[in-house]
């Protein structure tokens, strides 16, 4: 076991996969000589050379399309979005080409590519650098969307994403890069399509992902002291959703709270609620509650920013209310 920071876990995943498969390469802004804005590609340029760790000009839509073309012709690109917000500039290539081209081409081409980088609300980075984008991409056919949350799953999921033959949007969270965890010394891969049961419980199912997992974990400490026993599930895969795990939990607890960092309108939680209504309505003892961030551009002011995203106390209160059936 070796104590590893999350950004280093990601770096190890990339390094191991580049060593294992020479068609894997990294491209993006400042990924090479600079080593990545969050040092996820530190020193890989020296190890693998300038073509395999390719510093691109600031041209997001074009270098994303270039990765699509490289993937169509047999390479396995990993794009680093210096900030995932910049992907808005590449939306056409991600949606029309990475996402849809396999279908539109009648299966002529596959697009094995990973688009990864920091997303989420950081500390007073302002609206454009504090985006909650996962829901924007949710409706695009052909994309897989994954959010990592711990050093362990970050490494194992990124390795799985690199080996996947489909385009994977891989969300990291800007405030989680320095999380530490002991990682196994042996190689491991974490499947992309399985949710993770963070804490088994019986009173209520809490569905969450990315940084909100850690807010939920904080809230659970308070709830445990009050004698409550929530089940916490980290969704991991935001598309497709793992309804095997979600459904099994609902059949056990009959109550669901969704805690997400994305915006409420058209969010991941909105989709989950609709799907739960379709599949498990009869299992529910109470309407599903969702705690989402506010439908506003992330404000710069620290107090307003705190109000924008869900805080542990709110989660605690929501669980207590629900268990008391005061939903």
């Amino acid at each position, binding site marked *: 076991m070796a104590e590893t920071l999350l950004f280093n876990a990601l770096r190890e995943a990339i390094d191991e996969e580049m060593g294992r498969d020479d068609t894997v390469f990294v491209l993006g802004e400042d990924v090479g000589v600079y080593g990545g804005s969050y040092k996820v590609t530190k020193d890989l340029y020296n190890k693998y050379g300038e073509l395999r760790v390719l510093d691109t*000009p600031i041209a997001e839509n074009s270098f994303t*399309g270039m990765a699509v073309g*490289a993937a*169509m*012709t047999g390479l396995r690109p990993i794009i680093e979005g210096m900030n995932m917000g910049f992907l808005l500039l590449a939306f056409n290539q991600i949606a029309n*080409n990475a996402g849809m081209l396999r279908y539109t081409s009648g*299966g002529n081409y596959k697009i094995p590519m990973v688009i990864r980088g920091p997303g989420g609300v950081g500390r007073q980075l302002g609206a454009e650098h504090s985006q909650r984008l996962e829901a924007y991409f949710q409706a695009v056919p052909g994309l897989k969307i994954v959010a990592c949350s711990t050093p362990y799953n970050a490494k194992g999921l990124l390795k799985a994403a690199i080996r996947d033959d489909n385009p994977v949007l891989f969300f990291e969270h800007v405030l989680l890069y320095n999380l530490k965890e002991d990682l196994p010394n042996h190689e491991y891969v974490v499947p992309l399509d399985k949710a993770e049961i963070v804490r088994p419980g019986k009173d209520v199912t809490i569905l969450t992902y990315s940084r909100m997992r850690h807010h939920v974990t904080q809230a659970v400490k308070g709830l445990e002291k009050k004698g409550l026993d929530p089940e916490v599930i980290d969704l991991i895969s935001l598309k497709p959703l793992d309804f095997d795990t979600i459904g099994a939990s609902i059949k056990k607890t009959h109550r669901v709270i969704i805690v997400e960092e994305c915006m409420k309108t058209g969010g991941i939680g909105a989709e989950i609620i609709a799907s739960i209504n379709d599949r498990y309505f009869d299992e529910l003892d109470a309407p599903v509650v969702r705690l989402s961030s506010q439908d506003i551009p992330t404000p710069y002011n620290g107090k307003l920013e705190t109000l924008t995203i869900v805080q542990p106390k709110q989660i605690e209160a929501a669980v207590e209310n629900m268990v008391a059936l005061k939903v």
Partner: protein
Amino acid sequence: MVQERTLPQFHAPAAQIAPEEGLRLYEDMILGRFFEDKCAEMYYRGKMFGFVHLYNGQEAVSSGVIKSLRSDDYVCSTYRDHVHALSAGVPAKNVMAELFGKETGCSKGRGGSMHLFSSEHNMLGGFAFIGEGIPVALGAAFQSRYRRDALGDSSADQVTACFFGDGTTNNGQFFECLNMAALWKLPILFVVENNKWAIGMAHERATSQPEIYKKAAVFGMPGVEVDGMDVMAVREVAQQAVARARAGEGPTLIEALTYRFRGHSLADPDELRSKAEKEAWLARDPIKRFEGYLLEQNLADEGTLKEVRDRIQTRIDDALTFAEESPEPSPDDLYKYIFADE
């Protein structure tokens, strides 16, 4: 009528071409022309749907460039992609079946006119949005260089030909990709088919520098203009550009001055282009011109050319029968091809 540019002079007799090579080019141009004429007929008879953009008039560009490539080179096209696909070797029957939305189409009936793909023929696609194919083509070219220089595969000398129109050259992806291609010396040909009009927007009204080939200079890239109605001229510049790309000397921007003989798509009333302009360009029909050249140079006689036309007409008729008789995709396969591992 917009001010016409003086077409660059090219003296074809100076170019060497074997009779069989001349006939190969002629056959490819005839294939493109006859195929598109059949598409118009089928569209107006309600057999073909969606937006259909025909290539009539521009055949010298597709044939001149793509027939200068090897079969393992790559071709990337736009929404006006039927003839590029045909030149790249995608069988006419599979292109026609695609336009009929059939399972036997080159995109299994899922793509349609603007989304022709064939991995077997390294046809990277028809891309329907302006400019979006250029980065994809750049990626294929990067892949060739990656295999050669990062993986040490000396046989990886494939070249990518990327086609797009004059309107696209005002889009950021054009400039971004020219920059990266020159920066990394990628084996790619940027082929602008300047047909003077982006639907109803005249080229001169959309751009501050109408001479597109000159835009290569700021990237330190060779830029050449060529008479896009003369297949021998297009072939000559394409061969030079392919040789440079294959030798690792980087990209070339080719501006082929050409004209579409029909509207932007079959849904376009084509009211803005003047009669005088259309007549002036129709008089330069690249197929008639090349027929004249083949005859003058004694590379073929009338009988041989007629034989080619008859053979192609039969192929088009067979393609039509094939398309009409082919099955539609099964409703059970509605979700097939979303993900690669399903």
